[in-house]
């Protein structure tokens, strides 16, 4: 007897629910929105399950979560990033922090620095450093060439270093 398609879908997709929530939470910056995005993403994934031809189920789920997050933000209009004069002033932007200063950053600083990144930079750093995806996998999830993954990671790291350096340097 053929396995019920919903059961088959659950077996394929549900193991990646934690990863789905992780990506949504960091992209949306808001827990309630992240939960809504994950629910919508799983329903979309179910709808398009016949297009999934086996292979990396985690990457497939994450791609749908990523796209759903982007649609969500477009629909709601991006909330403007809080502007902090001290972080964006010219002298701070020239300053390259030392590694020790970066390591001293606390949770609030790290979260705030991440939240400040533009969405297209935040998603590559989350997929790489938090979720451990390879460049090839990130390219697949975000729908961009590997070269773009590399350059965005480079910009994301530079931006995070500057912001964290400024936040940690204030203490």
């Amino acid at each position, binding site marked *: 007897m053929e396995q019920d398609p919903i059961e088959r879908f659950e077996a394929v997709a549900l193991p990646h629910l934690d990863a789905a929530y992780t990506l949504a939470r960091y992209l949306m910056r808001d827990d309630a929105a992240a939960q809504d995005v994950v629910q919508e993403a799983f329903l979309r994934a179910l709808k398009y399950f016949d297009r999934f031809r086996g292979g990396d189920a985690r990457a497939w789920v994450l791609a749908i979560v990523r796209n759903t997050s982007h649609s969500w933000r477009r629909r709601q209009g991006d909330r403007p990033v809080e502007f902090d004069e001290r972080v964006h002033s010219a002298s701070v932007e020239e300053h390259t922090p030392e590694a020790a200063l970066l390591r001293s950053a606390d949770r609030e600083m790290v979260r705030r620095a991440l939240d400040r990144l533009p969405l297209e930079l935040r998603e590559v750093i989350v997929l790489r450093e938090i979720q451990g995806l*390879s460049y090839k996998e990130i390219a697949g999830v975000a729908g961009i060439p590997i070269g773009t993954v590399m350059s965005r990671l480079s910009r994301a790291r530079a931006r995070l270093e500057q912001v964290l350096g400024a936040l940690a340097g204030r203490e």
Partner: protein
Amino acid sequence: MRCAEIEQRIGALADGELVEAEARDVEEHLRSCPACRAAHERVLALRTALEQHAPPLAAPDRLRAAVHARLETAASVSRRPVAWRWLAAAATLVAAIGGTWQVATTVSDGRALADQVLASHVRSLMPGHLTDVASTDQHTVKPWFNGRLDYSPAVSDFAGAGFPLIGGRLDYVGGRPVAALVYGRRQHMIDVLLWPTESGTRAGPASLTRQGYHLLHWVGPQYTYWVVSDLATPELRQFSELLQRAEAATYR
């Protein structure tokens, strides 16, 4: 290799994305170049900070349950018989409703309303018609109705009691646009249609069963409710009590 070339590869080295030969070249350069070494150190320090303070997360239980409920609902809807059979059944509802109805409204009003409520529910079970706003968050669903209705429906979530909020939609019943709130109970869907009570009217819960669907109706102090589902009446009453208690809590 010159620094400008190395700079672009430092991230890739830290990410383990360089082929062995290239990795060796970059590492050799780092040994003799303090500036590039410092850049590499910064990438590693950033990694440490992220690992410590921005870890992978576990999906909250509530989310896990909500995703499960939605998938089970989709499963039960897809397994239902073809929708037209149920629409035909709903059409015979008008003739079937008779003196069993005991509400403050007239019998013909009750008959017409019950007919419309059931048709609304049956229609909602067709693919893509369940909700206009799909969210388990009452703080998302309630404001969604602003500007779409001339009243603001009370929206509560009863996920803790096993009746998670699934979303909401606009419907048209009794000659007016109304709020429909959708709840889940295992694989069942429950529709709650509610609108403001006309002053002076009150009526205790009355129940009706037709074609496998159960309807409950009452007129509360703030809102008038119709609850419809294929869920058995005892559980539907249990759910209705949650609605009544939630209304009483806000009405004080």
